[in-house]
């Protein structure tokens, strides 16, 4: 029995090690992620992000002992309304202003805001002037409201990319694509059919999940359902198209998995699914714009939380459409039907 087990074990190991491309990706991916995240998030990860309302771009730590607190990223901010909106949307854990009358704003539904407030009040005991708490005007947004678009978007991303990427690679491996090649079907037609199929399926699933969540958790929905639906459709097309590029030539499921992970993980981390990138540098914030998920989440959150209209999210929709066109064009160009 053990002989048979060992034979299979050895055979699988050889297969894995001799598939050099997959092996290389399995080795390379963690390295890329470690270096990428180190670069993106920069040294020690700050636990809290606090906006500092002031005219200057430089944080002057002598203004208040709180500004010396470790593991807190202080972000200079000049626009009070914008900063308050970010506090209410969990993009800033706290907003402070050290003017003549020191003040701070916190989202009562934010757990991170609660702990940041404790740190502020502790350090304030050492200050000469006591800081005053201000109320956020309008309803504060719960974390569930903020994170729901992120979770739906992430689910959409995984379903679109893995659902299409793996299937196309399997079709190529088992010869189904070769059979289709012998028909009048073109690569563009095949790719378009895959995009349409997955887009319809994932949009339906997303609508069902959204509806159920919206009813059960009473999540916030300020804007139009149609606009949100449009964001989901255009976003799904864009992410399926990206999955198709990755699977356009690959013949190994393991390599496809590696490549898809290489795109999915940075996309998930940099698009703001779980936490805001408010504290990240401009390079990272600009880099995030190349990912379809960033545009989907920005647009969806704007519609759901701020009541943005179609015109307001048009830049995101245009970006997603352009990305889709680029992805489908490249995918059709480099698409390979067979294994060789």
């Amino acid at each position: 029995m053990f002989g048979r087990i060992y034979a299979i074990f050895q055979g699988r190991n050889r297969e894995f090690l001799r598939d050099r491309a997959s092996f290389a990706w399995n080795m390379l991916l963690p390295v890329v992620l470690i270096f990428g995240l180190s670069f993106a998030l920069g040294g020690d990860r700050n636990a809290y992000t606090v906006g500092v309302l002031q005219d200057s771009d430089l944080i002057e730590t002598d203004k208040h002992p709180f500004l010396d607190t470790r593991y807190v990223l202080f972000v200079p901010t000049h626009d009070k309304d914008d900063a308050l909106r970010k506090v209410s949307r969990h993009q800033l854990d706290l907003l402070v202003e050290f003017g003549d009358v020191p003040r701070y704003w916190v989202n009562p539904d934010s757990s991170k805001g609660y702990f940041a407030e404790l740190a502020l009040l502790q350090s304030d005991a050492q200050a000469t002037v006591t800081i005053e708490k201000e109320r956020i005007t309008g309803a504060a947004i719960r974390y569930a409201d903020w994170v729901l678009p992120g979770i739906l978007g992430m689910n959409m991303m995984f379903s679109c990319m893995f659902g299409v990427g793996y299937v196309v690679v399997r079709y190529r491996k088992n010869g189904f694509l070769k059979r289709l090649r012998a028909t009048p079907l073109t690569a563009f037609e095949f790719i378009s059919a895959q995009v349409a199929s997955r887009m319809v399926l994932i949009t339906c699933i997303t609508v069902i999940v959204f509806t159920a969540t919206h009813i059960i958790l009473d999540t916030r929905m300020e804007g139009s359902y149609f606009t949100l639906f449009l964001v989901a459709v255009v976003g799904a097309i864009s992410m399926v198209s990206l999955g198709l590029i990755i699977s356009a030539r690959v013949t190994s499921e393991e390599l496809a998995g590696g490549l898809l992970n290489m795109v999915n993980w940075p996309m998930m981390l940099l698009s703001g699914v779980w936490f805001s990138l408010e504290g990240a540098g401009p390079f990272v914030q600009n880099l995030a714009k190349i990912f379809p998920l960033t545009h989907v989440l920005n647009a969806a959150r704007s519609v759901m939380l701020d009541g943005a209209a179609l015109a307001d999210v048009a830049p995101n929709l245009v970006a997603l459409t352009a990305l889709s066109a680029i992805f489908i064009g490249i995918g059709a160009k480099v698409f390979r039907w067979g294994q060789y």
Partner: protein
Amino acid sequence: MTTVLEARDLVKQYPGVTAVDGVSFSVAEGICFGLLGPNGAGKTTTVEIIEGVISATSGAVYYYGEPAGTRFRQEAGIQFQNTALQDFLTVRETIQMFRALYDRKADLDHIVEQCSLGDLLDRDNRKLSGGQRQRLLLAVALVNHPRLIFLDEPTTGLDPQARRNFWDLVQSIRAEGASIVLTTHYMDEAQVLCDDIAIMDAGKIITQGSPNELLRRRYQGLIIELPISDLTDELRQIEHTVHENLGIIEVVTSDVSSSLQQLSPHVRNLNHIKIRQPNLEDLFLDLTGHSLRT
């Protein structure tokens, strides 16, 4: 007679290997053309170049005198040697899906009846037997009412009964006027189905013509088979032995009576002698010196 298909000087090179080395042939309208050869001879590669599935290193393919293109794709039906179908689809759904890919559409009921798939229409593709699956793959190849059909080793792995049923099916399709290109390494299959054949080995066509013409050209008479163990040493030295394989000596003769008279003193047991017509396998063994089924 009109030429349906013409392959001109096809070459396919892979690093270190020339899989197809200057193959040329033509297929007349309405015939069954057989491309024969052992595994690895290059026949599947040749056919896949013609089908447009892989590109040739050099050479050209013509369909009704024009470079094979859009018209060829619309009018050709193809059954690959190994084709996976989509999981979780029924036989009916599979046929309908492929039928929708063509402008020319065959009558669905006719295909189903012709390929005897009536009782299987609602069955999952994955639950078909080998013979049923081959019939489905043939039905898929017929969805566009093709004028030219490629069958790549369609009976490999089938039991004898399923093979013969498949032959009947191929003959019924041909009777409706379609031309057929059949690749196979079964010589009996080629002899039953093909009007014209080309035998390939090591990427080249080594002979071409109708089966009877090729056999007539090579052999004048019948073959006497004798077990080596039944022979005396003297007979082993005779010069007209055509082949020795698996313990059998084969002697070609145009005068069986005379040959038997000459042979009988040298054969210990006459009960094991067989007399038969030469076949394509004999021809291949003669031409290449190795077995067709290797």
